[in-house]
């Protein structure tokens, strides 16, 4: 079992992260990965230039680690890798990489799904959408909270 969690100030490279978990998952039969990307438009349809992720010096990483550990305890997975951007992320660039490796695909799919539902609502970030029309701090949607509730 290995859990790798990082807070990344530099551009995130999903291919490199996938290579890393694949190298550790040599005894597994499945690796599922998810890449979240900064959307080019706000919920109201305005064009965006970047997403700014403010974070806490200790609580942010702690929240990512807590979620990763919880996924490892809940599902039959061998390895977990969570890498999250902070700072300014240009639209189209990756924000988060979440991956789980398991002997069988179902547990890997479920763990990755669980990781993202919890990250989307509980990770300690404060996100601001920035575009030509101005900027706006955003919070999880009702749909995000509903997805989180599926796991109890």
């Amino acid at each position: 079992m290995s859990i790798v969690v990082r807070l990344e100030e530099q551009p995130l490279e999903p291919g490199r992260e996938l290579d890393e978990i694949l190298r550790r998952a040599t005894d597994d039969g499945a690796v599922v990965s998810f890449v979240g990307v900064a959307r080019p438009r706000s919920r109201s349809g305005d064009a965006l230039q970047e997403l700014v992720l403010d974070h806490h010096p200790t609580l942010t990483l702690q929240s990512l680690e807590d979620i990763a550990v919880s996924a490892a305890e809940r599902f039959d997975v061998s390895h977990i890798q969570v890498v999250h951007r902070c700072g300014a992320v240009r639209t189209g660039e990756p924000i988060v990489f979440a991956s789980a490796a398991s002997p069988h695909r179902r547990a890997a799919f479920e763990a990755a799904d669980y990781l993202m539902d919890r990250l989307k609502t509980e990770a300690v970030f404060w996100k601001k959408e920035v575009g030509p029309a101005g900027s706006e701090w955003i919070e999880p949607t009702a749909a995000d909270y509903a997805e989180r509730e599926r796991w109890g």
Partner: protein
Amino acid sequence: MRVLFYGRLAEAIAPELEVDAPPGCSVGQLRDRLAAAHPSAEQTLRSRRARACVGAVMVHDDHVVGPTETVEFLPPVSGG
């Protein structure tokens, strides 16, 4: 007393503030003072999902702030 803010609170107030609070001031009293001084931040400061932390540990409004403690006000998180 040193007070730190994040997210929309840092934008509305400041990332860091030195508050001249009396000895024995609680987190709730500090919140009231900040809300009165920064009306644009009041709704966020009083949000059900907002949190106050001392030493990176969540505290309730009745926590009495020690003379050397730093209080952090965290707006509702956005998630990742």
